[in-house]
């Protein structure tokens, strides 16, 4: 069986007299089980040899063919065309990956991507005498890293990262997941230095926990999950004087105290009441909220049975 597919491809030719992106539609006949990549290759081979795209293994191993389909990053090779064809019959929208500059059509520039990967020192930094053979680690100590080592560097997570969209300084999900791979490696001797570096601006605390990277990663790397684990490790290592760390600690304290979130005290505790600059920044919203009568309770009562919540805090925290 074949199916009739219309692709709407966002194109860009840097060699044009006035380079600008534009959309082009291609109508093709495809076998039912075809992938999106099959469709694009068919267009390139049979209809329009000028269409540029990157691909190699066609088996979700090489990580070459990440692009956006209907607004979401995917690997073209492991995306079935049928799954992305809109029910209303409208064309399948194909665009280059986001957050990276376009070189031509669906090919993006990975320089920034690799720069961020390099910035987290993605190599083992052991200390002590060099062993005769390999640097060995017990199996069980590496299990939690198996998933993150499955990263194929396709850039899908970077493409759809909502923080990178507003701040190019952010290390981003791929580099931070890679950082976790070494922070969590028992053979690495620089866990603390790494964590310290990663708590700076652009590092682990700048992630907004939107889970785009978790959703679009084709290999189940769970970058955001790794970032959360690094936050936990950074706090445990005592790197707790950033706003991110202070926010997590303040939040935890307030829930332990009252069982619920105390929205009034959370920013004050995070910034510190004597932090004049930040307190002044809070003033306008505080006043506007007051004017519309939208102020959280000044002295919220703890929830009934709060002692049970506090006991859980003690018990579970003690298990760490």
């Amino acid at each position, binding site marked *: 069986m074949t199916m009739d597919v219309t692709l709407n491809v966002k194109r860009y030719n840097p060699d044009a007299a006035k380079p600008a992106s534009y959309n082009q539609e291609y109508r093709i006949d495809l076998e039912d089980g075809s992938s999106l990549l099959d469709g694009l290759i068919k267009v390139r081979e049979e209809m329009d040899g000028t269409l540029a795209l990157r691909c190699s293994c066609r088996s979700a191993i090489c990580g070459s063919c990440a692009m956006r389909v209907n*607004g979401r990053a995917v690997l073209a090779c492991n995306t079935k065309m049928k799954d992305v064809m809109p029910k209303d019959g409208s064309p399948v929208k194909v665009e280059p990956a986001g957050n990276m500059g376009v070189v031509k059509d669906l090919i993006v520039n990975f320089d920034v991507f690799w720069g961020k990967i390099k910035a987290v020192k993605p190599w083992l930094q052991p200390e002590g005498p060099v062993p005769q053979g390999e640097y060995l680690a017990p199996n069980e100590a590496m299990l939690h890293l198996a998933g993150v080592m499955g990263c194929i560097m396709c850039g899908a997570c970077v493409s759809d990262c*909502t*923080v990178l*969209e*507003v*701040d190019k300084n952010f290390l981003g999900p791929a580099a931070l997941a890679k950082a976790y791979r070494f922070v969590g490696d028992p053979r690495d001797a620089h866990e603390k230095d790494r964590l310290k570096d990663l708590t700076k*601006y652009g590092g682990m*605390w*700048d*992630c*907004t*926990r*939107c*889970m*785009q990277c*978790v*959703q679009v990663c084709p290999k189940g790397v769970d970058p955001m999950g790794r970032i*959360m684990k690094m*936050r*936990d490790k950074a*706090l445990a290592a005592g790197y707790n004087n*950033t*706003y*991110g760390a202070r*926010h*997590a*600690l303040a*939040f*935890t304290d307030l*829930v332990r105290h009252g*069982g*619920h*979130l*105390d*929205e009034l005290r*959370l*920013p004050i505790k995070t910034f510190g009441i004597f932090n004049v600059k930040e307190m002044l*920044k809070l003033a*306008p*919203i505080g006043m*506007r*909220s007051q004017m*519309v009568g*939208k*102020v*959280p*309770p000044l002295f*919220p009562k703890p*929830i*009934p049975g709060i002692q*049970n*919540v506090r*006991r*859980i*805090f003690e*018990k*579970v*925290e003690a*298990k*760490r």
Partner: protein
Amino acid sequence: MKYAFYPGCVARGAAPELFASTIEVARRLGIELDYEPMRGASCTGAGVLQEKNQRLGDTLNARTFAMAEKAGLPLMVICSTCQGVMSQASKRFKDDPAYLAEINKDLAEEGLQYKGTVEPKHLLWAIIEDIGIDKLKAQVVKPLKGMKLAPFYGCYIVRPSAALGFAEHPEREDSLEQVIKAVGAEVVDFRGKTLCCGFPILTINQNNALKMVANHTLEAKGNGADAMVTPCPLCHLNLDGYQPAAAGLRKQPIDMPIIHLPQMLGMAMGIEPKALKLNKHLVSTKKLLSDLVLAP
């Protein structure tokens, strides 16, 4: 239909209008909200507690689930973030019964045990799955005809879809659009509808959070929206409360009212704006309401 009602912290704190409008709307939809079993329930952790200690967050959520289970009631939430955090915990319990058994040991002292039967459900999903869009339509006495509304989901009610049951419930993917249409308004589609509002980094990197607010509100405005509607009170707090600052950042007015899901439903049900506390917004809803009154 009766639910154990978990309003979450924000609806009882900085967004009281969400609580009030939910109560009004639920009554008309025949939804009985029982707060009693949830009286001692704690915060879900909102993803923040989880970044410090995931197991701690999971234990607190198992405790809440056990309370609803004990009451024999399904669990309703009215916050995308509560929904997501609870769904993620629930998935971990389902995937790993040994983990849940360990967690139950910490609940035993309080006489609680979670058997794993609770499926937390947002009002938005409950309307579609339990109440029925037709029942909602039957309650619409003042269709929001001509009103252009941009849906804004909030991350936690759309991602990760594997934890949110999207495979079994494909209707959840465009649930907000469905209810917007059901009340007679026009859906304004825009790219930002499932992106992050920036709330979680407000105290960490405010500049980035403000850029997100500006991007989404201006995109919705550019596409012709009269207002944005959200099932997430945290998105509301950021998109509404920090909109003046975001407008300052972009040096252009935005004036995009951010209404809560039940406020939109209530407007279409002919409930008084005051009862829906539409006056409790930082970005005024006056123009929106007067347009509605003047609508033919």
